[in-house]
């Protein structure tokens, strides 16, 4: 089906035009032209994705696969790769989410970036991002996916550093790209190992739809005494930890919040960071064969979820909280993947895309209204001033906290249920995380939207607690200007909030009388991988009980947040002083992971680089120069030239005057040319005498 390529190519065309001619268009046709063009491309891409989706629905579940081969790309030896796109249930879901949420965020951006002179660049890069992300999800083989995989890294880099005049932004951008690159390096290694192992088995392919059939051949293949499939999947998973911000490569994501808020919403919450989840689901046929890797994924996911949630408890920057929340939710998704519940992971990915994008955009609306103030301690009381923003934000918060019947409840509970079936300890960690999530998210809601306005409040640089309400003053000069944002901003908010409210209904589990449409839709994809359909043999009662527990825990978290931040019947200090404040400081300082990385890996690399630079200049070049110098010493230039120059000149002058003396010595001029003259005249004379 030829149309699939246009899902990818339209945003690319948009990007190409906006990035090359955008500034002229913006100057001559106005800002709206740039925005409309960029958003139009995104919407058109979304529309085509919808038609593709409809087309898929008309097909039999087993044959839901549309492939569009654009161009043979690389054909060298056994390697044969085409630039081709495929639409199957999984990639269709992803394409809809990416282009759908992406389009909304394009519209939002026009409202949000209303003062930025480089609007054309912003829209160009957003379009480029859509292109890369859609390439990632629609690519029909690992190498094309890798193009998108790195392409989104590039766009992420460019958009985090969009306001490049600030050094901190560019540093964050570079950090993001480099951490991603570490993951990409592992990804590349995994891909090469997979390719050569398959090539050795006579099935050199990197095409997804063929991998399912040949993957079983990998059984029993060993490299360095380890099953190849384990090594491949581990390497690919390391790649996923880079892109999806899991331990140990998650540290770039919170810093990435330096970018404009629409970027955070689109790239660093809804789409790009979920690429790892998508990749693992896409290659589930391999991952299912590697139980060790699945264990690693589950544990990593659970640890990341918990760790990020604990960090989010104490952050004051409105976007940082959301960033750590994203890391934590991604951890959830990986727990699902690690349990072999790929559909559950992808389901949470979809619902998360809605509510997290909504949260970020809501935060953006707040930030925009507060004139780029991001510290929650200087907000408060915005509920009445920005009602639309407030309500959408609240809906999304409830969704992420897992309150029924919002989206997050269904997807999260499905993950918890699968985790419980696999290993109750994972479920326990997930439950604690759910409680923490509810707490910090409602802390945020209460701090931002409730209470009195604290705009202009002085906040100590190293404030130890967030209870800034104590020194509340009313002369905030921003306060009176705060009002609801424009329609371009609120419209996407509303649409996303609706999504956050309803997206979960796609996957109502059978236990609650639903038909779990979502899992069914993806079933043809995951059937081959042998997803566990451990249907209810442990009883519906247990599932109900677990649901109840998780809802209770969420409510508990909300209540606690209410007591601490709204009723103020509990002081935040009591918590921050637990165990002499060690846990608090660890959380507030993000477990010092950045510092540790900086002190070891980065400093080590830089030191090695400087040492080698010195080695190159001093030792290697020194040997060369030394050899040259010794040759020179024998051959030409002695070191004492200068000395002799002076002496020589003095001698020379003296001789000039001296020689001016004797008359007899006039003939003996010492001038070589004069001698030659005399010689030549003599010779000519002799010859003349002979010739004539």
């Amino acid at each position, binding site marked *: 089906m030829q149309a699939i390529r246009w899902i990818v190519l339209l945003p690319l065309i948009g990007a190409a035009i906006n990035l090359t001619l955008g500034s002229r268009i913006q100057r001559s046709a106005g800002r709206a032209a740039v925005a409309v063009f960029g958003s139009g491309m995104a919407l058109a891409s979304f529309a085509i994705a919808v038609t593709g989706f409809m087309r898929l629905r008309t097909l039999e579940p087993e044959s839901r696969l549309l492939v569009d081969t654009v161009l043979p790309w690389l054909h060298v030896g056994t390697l044969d790769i085409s630039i081709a796109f495929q639409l199957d249930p999984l990639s269709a879901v992803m394409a809809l989410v990416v282009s759908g949420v992406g389009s909304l965020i394009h519209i939002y951006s026009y409202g949000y970036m209303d003062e930025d002179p480089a609007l054309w660049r912003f829209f160009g890069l957003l379009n480029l991002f859509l292109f890369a992300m859609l390439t990632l999800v629609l690519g029909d083989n690992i190498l094309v996916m890798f193009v998108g995989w790195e392409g989104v890294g590039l766009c992420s880099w460019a958009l985090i550093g969009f306001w490049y005049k600030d050094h901190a932004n560019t540093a964050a951008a570079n950090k993001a790209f480099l951490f991603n690159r570490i993951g990409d390096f592992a990804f590349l290694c995994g891909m090469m190992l997979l390719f050569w192992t398959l090539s050795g088995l006579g099935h050199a392919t990197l095409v997804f739809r063929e991998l399912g059939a040949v993957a079983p051949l990998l059984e029993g293949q060993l490299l360095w005494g380890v099953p190849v499939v384990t090594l491949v999947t581990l390497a690919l998973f390391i790649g996923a930890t880079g892109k999806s911000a899991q331990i140990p490569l998650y540290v770039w994501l919170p810093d990435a919040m330096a970018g404009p808020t629409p970027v955070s919403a689109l790239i660093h919450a809804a789409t790009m960071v979920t690429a790892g989840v998508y990749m693992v689901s896409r290659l589930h046929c391999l991952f299912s064969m590697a139980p060790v890797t699945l264990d690693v994924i589950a544990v990593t996911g659970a640890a990341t979820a918990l760790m990020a949630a604990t960090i989010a408890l104490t952050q004051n920057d409105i976007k940082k909280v959301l960033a750590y929340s994203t890391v934590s939710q991604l951890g959830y998704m990986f727990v699902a993947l690690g349990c072999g519940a790929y559909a559950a992971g992808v389901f949470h990915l979809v619902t998360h895309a809605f509510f997290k994008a909504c949260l970020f955009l809501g935060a953006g609306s707040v930030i925009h209204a507060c004139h780029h103030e991001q510290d929650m301690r200087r907000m408060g009381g915005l509920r009445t001033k920005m009602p639309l923003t407030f309500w959408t934000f609240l809906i999304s918060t409830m969704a992420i906290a897992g309150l029924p019947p919002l989206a997050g409840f269904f997807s999260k509970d499905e993950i918890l249920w699968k985790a419980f079936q696999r290993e109750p300890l994972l479920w326990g960690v997930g439950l604690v995380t759910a409680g923490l999530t509810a707490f910090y998210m409602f802390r945020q809601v209460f701090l931002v939207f409730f209470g009195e306005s604290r705009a202009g409040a002085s906040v100590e640089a190293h404030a130890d607690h967030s209870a800034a309400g104590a020194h509340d003053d009313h002369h905030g000069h921003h306060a009176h200007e705060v009002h609801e944002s424009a329609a371009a901003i609120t419209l996407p908010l509303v649409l996303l909030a609706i999504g956050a409210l309803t997206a979960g209904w796609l996957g109502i589990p059978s236990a609650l009388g639903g038909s779990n449409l979502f899992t069914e839709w993806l079933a043809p994809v995951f059937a081959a991988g042998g997803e566990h359909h451990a249907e209810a043999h442990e009883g519906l009662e247990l599932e109900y009980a677990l649901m109840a527990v998780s809802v209770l825990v969420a409510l508990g978290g909300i209540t606690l947040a209410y007591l601490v931040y709204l009723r103020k019947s509990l002081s935040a200090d009591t918590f921050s002083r637990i165990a002499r404040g060690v846990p608090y400081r660890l959380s507030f300082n993000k477990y010092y992971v950045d510092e540790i990385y900086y002190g070891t890996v980065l400093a080590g690399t830089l030191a090695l680089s400087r040492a080698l630079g010195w080695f190159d200049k001093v030792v290697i070049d020194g040997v060369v120069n030394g050899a040259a110098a010794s040759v020179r010493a024998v051959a*030409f*230039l*002695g070191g004492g*030239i200068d000395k*002799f*120059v002076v002496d*020589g*000149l003095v001698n*020379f002058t003296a*001789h*000039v005057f001296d*020689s001016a003396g004797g008359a007899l*010595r006039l003939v*003996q*001029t*010492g*001038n*070589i*040319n004069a001698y*030659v*003259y005399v010689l*030549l005249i003599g010779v000519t004379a002799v010859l003349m005498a002979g010739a004539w």
Partner: protein
Amino acid sequence: MSMTTVGLAHYLVVSVVLLCLGLYCVLTRRNAIGVLMGIELILNSAGINFVAVSRYGSAGFDGQVFAVFIIMLAAAESAIGLAVVLGIYRRMRAIDTSRLTTLQG
């Protein structure tokens, strides 16, 4: 020997031209290296003479052997000559022959 066929005389004329240009160079140059280049030209003209005469003369290889010797001597001469020039340059910071008159008695 008709006028249109190249013969000994043609080579000798070339040789003479080279000799004269070389001499001119030696006479006029004030740069010692330039002088040395002139000498190379003179030596070359001699080489042409030897080879040409050898070719159109007794058909032996004597002339060519001499040409080879000339080239050898030229190499030696230029090596020593340039070493001297560099030595002078080191001493005097100049290789202008009109200023190098320390040979004067």
